């Protein structure tokens, strides 16, 4: 099923785009599995998503841990730890 994937900050720069729509296989059911799958899509993805300890995620705009489910999700965002304020 089509999934909107968003990237922010240096993750966006490394992937080379801010958003893409992908259709991962049915066995990709968590954020962590999605990251693994995305890394195999291009060298830029591989470089951007290599170190999962530097990544945070949101599913349908809610912050979640990387083992969270993406089943039924419409939007997944991947980004570095936040640094606002």
């Amino acid at each position, binding site marked *: 099923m089509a999934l909107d994937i968003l990237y922010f900050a240096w993750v966006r720069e490394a992937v080379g785009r801010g958003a893409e729509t992908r259709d991962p296989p049915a066995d990709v059911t968590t954020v962590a599995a999605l990251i693994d799958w995305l890394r195999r899509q291009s060298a830029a993805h591989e470089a951007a998503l290599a170190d999962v300890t530097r990544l945070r995620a949101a599913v349908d705009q809610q912050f979640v841990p990387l083992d969270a489910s993406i089943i039924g999700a419409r939007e997944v965002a991947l980004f570095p730890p*936040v640094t*606002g*304020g």
Partner: protein
Amino acid sequence: MIRVILPTAPIDVAAELAHIEGAGAGAVASFTGLVRADDGVLALELEHYPGATDAALLRLAQTAAERWQLIAATIIHRVGRMVPGDRIVFVATAARHRAAALDACAFLIDRLKTDAPFWKREELADGARWVAPRAADDDAARRWE
């Protein structure tokens, strides 16, 4: 009265303070974060997650309003490009008494550092870099748990 804004234009603190003072509270606390002029930073770029940011700030303001029985709360976080001296963030709280206003203000700015999807990119003389999160920010946010 909760007010959350993500402007690309400069933050008008005078107008914002006048607005929150108009809520009839006895105590108004505020915090303004500015781009420091003394770090060799030429410019600061604030990236955020549209939609998710607004929701996160609104949730934060509502949490503070309930916990400290605030009469009003304002969170304004600028996004886009800024230069030293510019205001990045402005938080204000209004309550009957000062302790509630002061504590809620500190809570909001601490939590804003860790709970809202903002990323800072600094432009220096020798290039640009994404600002790394500070462990102290996580500690500051956790003290409200």
